[in-house]
């Protein structure tokens, strides 16, 4: 296997910028150095120290059935830090190692199932998509505000689902022929691009939880449901009549007009959906539809 030795050398000479792939320096450190070169050295050291350290979590606890937990409280957990650790990893560790009654929803661990939106250090975040290393300690983890708490970090999602269902969230073909002889519909790439962002929603309810208007008005459809309707209303495959019908739903009292452009929905959306923009566009569409001569 002597040949490998020879091959290895030119390899590392060819790419001098490439730091040798040695385990001595953790990728985390390197990332920080490369990224914010210069001022970060100190920071990187702190990171390295943190590697042997623990993360201090303050987790909201509540259970209507258990006496000790009927009065909401915060529990402290000290979880060993690991590179790449996310908020979800940390609470899972706390549950598996310290307290098996710690309750939260989670499933995919990759930001597609939308079950683990929490209120982390004061903002709505997806647990699995939030790196611990980017948060200030202690990390305060609470259930989503403005939703009833079922237990610990679990909130009642029924209201959110009701709002999502209220916008008739399904494609409405006038005539769906027998499935065997379906002719492919055409859609321009531009039109697909237009609805692309709106179609990424994972129903995590972070946006709804962050919106003051939704907090005050239970009937407000909320940014996620409006965005869902946007996806259909803007899809050219649906006819103009159906689009008009969709706008009629949206322009009701608790529809798009409720939005006061607070932008917090857009800021917290883990899928980067431009919610405010979509809501505003629908307001204009609704006005246009009503001003026939436009």
């Amino acid at each position: 296997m002597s040949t490998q030795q020879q091959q290895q050398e030119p390899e590392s000479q060819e790419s001098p910028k490439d730091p040798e792939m040695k385990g001595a320096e953790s990728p985390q450190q390197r990332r920080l150095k490369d990224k914010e070169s210069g001022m970060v050295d100190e920071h990187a050291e702190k990171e390295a120290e943190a590697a042997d350290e623990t993360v201090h979590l303050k987790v909201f606890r509540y259970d209507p059935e258990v006496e000790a937990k009927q009065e909401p409280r915060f529990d402290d957990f000290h979880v060993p830090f690991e590179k790449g650790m996310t908020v979800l990893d940390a609470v899972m560790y706390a549950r598996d190692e310290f307290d098996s009654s710690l309750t939260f929803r989670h499933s995919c661990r990759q930001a597609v199932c939308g079950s683990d939106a929490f209120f982390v250090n004061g903002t709505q975040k997806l647990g699995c998509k939030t790196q611990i290393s980017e948060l200030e300690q202690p990390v305060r983890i609470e259930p989503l505000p403005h939703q009833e708490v079922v237990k610990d970090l679990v909130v009642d999602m029924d209201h959110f689902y009701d709002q999502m269902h209220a916008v008739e969230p399904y494609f409405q073909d006038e005539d769906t022929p027998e499935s065997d002889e379906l002719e492919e519909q055409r859609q321009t790439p531009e039109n697909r691009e237009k609805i692309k962002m709106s179609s990424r929603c994972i129903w995590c309810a972070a946006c709804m939880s962050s919106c003051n208007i939704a907090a005050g008005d239970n009937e407000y459809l909320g940014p996620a449901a409006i965005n869902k309707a946007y996806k259909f209303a803007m899809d050219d495959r649906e006819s103009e009549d159906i689009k008009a019908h969709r706008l009629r739903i949206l322009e009701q009292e608790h529809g798009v007009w409720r939005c006061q452009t607070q932008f917090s929905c857009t800021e917290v959306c883990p899928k980067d959906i431009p919610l405010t923009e979509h809501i505003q566009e629908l307001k204009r569409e609704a006005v246009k539809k009503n001003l026939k001569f436009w």
Partner: protein
Amino acid sequence: MAERYSSFTPGGTGWLLQRITAAFLVVVLAFHFFQLHFVNHAADVTFAGTQARMSSVGYFITMVLFLVTAAFHGVNGVYNALVNQGLKGTQKKVVLAVLVIAGVALVAQGTYVALVMGDFI
């Protein structure tokens, strides 16, 4: 669940009017402020001066329009704000009635004052 919505004329007419009045107000409000604090200092205002300005029909019309739009914009704004906070049912109807009356009274009184000022009546 569209049935749930009630007592509301859809279509965003209110919303649109709020924007249109706002756009109009930007111009007149700026003009008004400038006129009464920079061109003529408020401290130097006299009835005679006011009368002189107001008797110009153009100025009179502008001011009345200013009043009407501001009243609508303000009252509609307050109403929306309250409704956004979850006001509904009878309470909402009462608030609407009160606000409409207040708004109409404001416009009526203001127009009357302006007519007097302009020496039209």
